[in-house]
């Protein structure tokens, strides 16, 4: 009758040493539409794919400005993402009230991860169903972090989350060694290329993606659609010409690619292929 005895609440261990509810939450991140991030020494670029829930609706916002020096891109439950963004905005503004200086990115990320961790250890709570790419600039330079529903966080040179993100990851892995000394515009170009990798069949145009930049002398801001379109045209990366490039992610992207966020409720039906804990 019961397929899984050990996934009825977050705090219950499986004999194999897994927390299924936490893994389902991470599955929600995978189902959300893709978000990518990459950084040089001086800049961080975030990008995401905008997918509308239905033919009749608009898409949801996936990139949020937290402060002049920090921004996030999310994949998973947008509602959870907004709650966490508000929390981060609060922390930033309180810090600058007290110290009149920007909150170090690493500290904000730790606080955020601690918040997520608490939800994995309380029976009456549920983990956040959202993964956050946190881009920021502080005294020690440009940073890109990934924050996971499990309460884990990692710092990256470049990373991608969400549906079909494996293709973007492959692209980024091939090229990340050059990112460190990249110019801002090259970084944006690579961001666009990585976003394109996550598309399935659609034509790559500015209306289906959002790009944001933060860097030295450049407060976090979302690039407006015209600028993005111009860059797409300038770089001549309209896409589709090399459609097969989307293949490598066949394993991870799976059926979910079509429906963005709000799909976490299906997490329970995922079979043995549940996410490993190491992310």
């Amino acid at each position, binding site marked *: 009758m019961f397929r899984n005895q050990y996934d009825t609440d977050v705090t219950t261990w499986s004999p194999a040493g897994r927390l299924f509810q936490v893994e389902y939450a991470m599955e929600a991140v995978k189902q959300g539409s893709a978000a990518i991030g990459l950084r040089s020494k001086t800049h961080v670029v975030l990008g995401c794919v905008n997918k509308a829930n239905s033919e009749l609706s608009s898409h949801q916002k996936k990139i949020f400005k937290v402060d002049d020096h920090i921004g996030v891109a999310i994949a998973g439950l947008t509602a959870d993402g907004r709650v966490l963004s508000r929390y981060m905005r609060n922390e930033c503004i309180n810090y600058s*009230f007290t110290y009149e200086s920007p909150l170090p990115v690493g500290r904000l990320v730790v606080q955020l991860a601690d918040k997520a961790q608490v939800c994995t250890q309380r029976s009456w709570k549920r983990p956040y169903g959202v993964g956050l790419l946190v881009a920021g600039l502080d005294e*020690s330079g440009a940073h890109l972090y990934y924050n996971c529903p499990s309460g884990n966080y990692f710092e990256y040179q470049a990373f991608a989350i969400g549906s079909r993100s494996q293709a973007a990851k492959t692209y980024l892995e091939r090229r990340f060694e050059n990112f460190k000394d990249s110019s801002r515009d090259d970084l944006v170009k690579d961001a666009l290329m990585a976003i394109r990798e996550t598309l399935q069949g659609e034509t790559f145009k500015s209306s289906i993606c959002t790009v944001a930049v933060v860097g030295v002398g450049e407060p976090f801001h979302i690039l407006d659609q015209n600028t993005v379109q111009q860059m797409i045209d300038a770089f001549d990366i309209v896409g589709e010409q090399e459609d097969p490039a989307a293949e490598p992610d066949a394993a991870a992207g799976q059926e979910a690619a079509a429906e963005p966020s709000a799909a976490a409720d299906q997490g329970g039906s995922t079979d043995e292929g549940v996410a490993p804990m190491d992310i």
Partner: protein
Amino acid sequence: MNCMDSKQPETGLLGPESDSQRTLYPYVTGTSVVALKYKDGILMAADMGGSYGSTLRYKSVERMKPIGKHSLLGASGEISDFQEILRYLDELILYDNMWDDGNSLGPKEVHNYLTRVMYNRRNKFNPLWNSLVLGGVKNGQTYLGMVSMIGVNFEDNHVATGFGNHLARPILRQEWHENLSFEEGVKLLEKCMRVLLYRDRSAVNKLQIAKITEEGVTISQPYSLKTHWEFSAFQNPTQGAVGSW
């Protein structure tokens, strides 16, 4: 805040806080602090007297302390309130260090924190009775600022609290320049402190000079200034001052 053990909490309009005690006037106070920017950082001077009212009650009160790696704090006013502020800052720096992530609070951050603490306490009608001087160097940036007991704050190239504001600032305005060497800076501070010693009755002739640079804080051993009281203007100070005795 010592709550007097009252019979029945007479919770009037002011709430249960109304019968608590606040600082209505300071008890043991220190007098002026003088500080200036120089070539490599900040120099600060303060004497070591602690006055109980107008009685010079204590003679070796240290009124300048290092705060973290990049800052130096000097205080005039209520000595015990200064000690409480130091406790706050010790905790602040401890928690900052516990992050152990390479970030640290600089003088600007500490100054702003103190501003918030001072203003917050005055809003509770329970001020910390001090004028604070905060100097420091971080990432090649020299910083010097002041906070008063009600939270008024500003930055400047040279600052002085209390009597120093009236007696030392004019000298500093006249003689201070950006490229003061260490020796010139000390000389200038000693000039200020000597004037204060002559004219401020609560100053004592035992002072320290502190220095903060990119390398860190050094606070000198206490020493005294050479004085000369035989100036003719000191002979009969009330002469020509109408109305004095």
